[in-house]
């Protein structure tokens, strides 16, 4: 195997640090960086900041209304096909039925290329962060990493109860085991590489709808 051994690598670092005073106690005042307090109007702040970030937020009262809203958005987007992963979408059966009723073709989630062909991808989220209007999506099981990425339009379902105040809370309230992949989606895909002109949808979705329940 090319490269060097772990021992040789670490030995160099140890000798570089040898003889230097070490402060071993970790800075514990991470709360200094808190921007949003836990007891504010988190839903209101989330909506405000998500809108600033270019997300289209639709607030509905309950899951039944959420299902109707997703169907309506599929119509607005002129979607002919959709990818709805088998896991992680609240009221999935109802969402699928609603899309089918509207004549949207449901792609097979087990087709590896489905996300590249779908007009819309519908997902739930693990959590949302009011501070940065970030949607936390995790991998695993019946979820599909590309359902929120390779589609031109991503529709994310967020339950009001899933919103935490600050990124500090997002980092603090996680299960001890990290998923293989977690992504914080804080806007649609964009680039400003050519002369700082902002262009949406360079690789990922150019449109991001959030259906907020509750």
């Amino acid at each position, binding site marked *: *195997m090319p*490269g*060097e051994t*772990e021992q*040789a*690598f*670490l030995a*160099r*670092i*140890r*000798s570089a*640090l*040898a*003889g*230097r005073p*070490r402060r071993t*106690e*970790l*800075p514990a005042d*991470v709360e200094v*960086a808190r921007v949003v307090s836990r007891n504010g109007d988190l839903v209101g702040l989330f909506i405000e900041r998500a809108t*600033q970030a270019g997300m289209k937020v639709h607030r509905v009262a309950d899951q039944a209304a959420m299902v109707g809203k997703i169907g309506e958005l599929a119509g607005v987007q002129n979607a002919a096909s959709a990818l709805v992963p088998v896991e992680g979408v609240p009221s999935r059966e109802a969402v699928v039925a609603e899309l089918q009723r509207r004549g949207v073709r449901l792609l097979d989630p*087990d087709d590896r*290329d489905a996300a590249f062909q779908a007009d819309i991808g519908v997902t739930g989220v693990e959590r949302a962060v009011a501070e940065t209007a*970030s949607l936390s999506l995790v*991998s*695993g*099981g*019946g*979820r*599909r*990493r*590309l359902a929120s*990425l*390779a589609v031109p339009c991503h529709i994310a379902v967020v339950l009001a109860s899933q919103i935490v105040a600050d990124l500090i809370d997002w*980092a603090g309230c996680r299960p001890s085991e*990290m*998923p*293989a*992949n*977690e*992504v*914080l*989606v*804080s*806007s*649609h*895909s964009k*680039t*400003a*590489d*050519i*002369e*700082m*002109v902002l*262009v949406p*949808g*360079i*690789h*990922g979705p150019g449109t991001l709808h959030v259906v907020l329940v509750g």
Partner: protein
Amino acid sequence: MSKAGHGAGVPDFKHQAAAAVANRRLQEIFDRATRQKDDGRRAILPELGDPLAVRELAARIKDHTLENLDRYLEQFVGQVRGRGGQVHFAADGDQAKAVIVDIARRASAKLIVKSKSMVSEEIELNHDLEAAGFEVLETDLGEYILQLAGEKPSHIVTPVAHKSREDVGRLFAEKLGIEYTSDPPALTMVARRVLREKFRTADLGIIGANFAVAETGTVCIVTNEGNGRYCSSRPRVLICLMGLEKLLPRMADLPVFLKLLGKSATGQRITCYTSLITGPKRAGDFDGPEEFHVVLMDNRRSAVLGSDYMPTLRCIRCGACLNACPVYRKIGGHAYEATYPGPIGKVITPLLNSLEVYEHLPQASSLCGACLDACPVRIDIPTHLIHLRQELVRRGRSPLTFRLGFKGWRLGMSSRWLYRWGAMQARWFMWLISRNGWCRWMPSTGGVWTQYRDLPVMPARPFRVRWAALQKELESEDGGDAR
């Protein structure tokens, strides 16, 4: 970051800089690109409440990590392995490249998609991968444009900051055979179409790391475009190449840096996509890489670790110091002839390469301190530059006249009479060589200075005399008030 990779054998900083300053289109594009980001940063940082406190916290977390880096590296390596990942160690860029080529070969990879990574620019990874027969594609739009053009990044966050829309239009027409257009959205969509197919079919992904969390063995990358997500989600094999300084102790520390990075880099509250990758896909997962490799690279970072320059390893490569720097804004990124341009580049390029080869870099600063003001992790770049200059003098890398001049200066500053006498001499001398009150030329080493700057002639009545007079005047006024 070999010198050879940047063209000329000998740095030709002055000519490059002069050419950049004379290029009006470049000035216009570069000025806009840097100012927009700098203004954005200033506008959004106050959202942090007490931004200075947050920046100092970030600096303390980084310092703590670096001081205990051996322990955190061990923890990180253990965690990555515990999640089924493989860890490789590379003393330098050549070893890192050999490791990556080896992984690609074993995986029988053909098509490699890469997310933007400054470390891979540092070691010129693509060159070796292509030489080994792999098709490699940069997938960040800016990096993709550079790859087509065969050029180097001019900015560490927005690598094509130097290119106009017309440049990109001509390049795409020539290399991709499309009809010429200079419309940024149209050009962007062309790149989208090309790269989308590559994402779909690639079998190996290469990413860098913005951060790595020791506690969980997690690698964190941020992108606005989403290309980092593709590279880490779709291909069968995933390689993360990272410098050893990227570690953070805990997940709890990550928010502090995520809050600072997007704001400092582009004035965004947070970057669009933040990916956390912890090992390969798990049993029962439908998608994700089957193999996950981390390549930990030293490449002279360990030499910086124990030194006075250790705080430079805090750098999170946000580019804020570049955007804030009046020199960088004028001369652009390419004049530096270094992978890392701008203020931080002036410090770390000599440290990670050779001070002798890059001796022009520590000098190319007015020490105004805008970089320190901008830096989210409070790296005192001006002081590091002064130390590098001292090092150059100690190594005898400065002209004799320069050293004699400063010896004379020291002597002059040691006595008020010598100082007055010296100032008088200097005034006479300047008056002799000046025209209309300005010195535009000086003999010997002074000429190097006046090549790019003018100096006003010292006034006939020195400050010392005027100050004394002013004080007297003020005193008599005060006396008047009292009555």
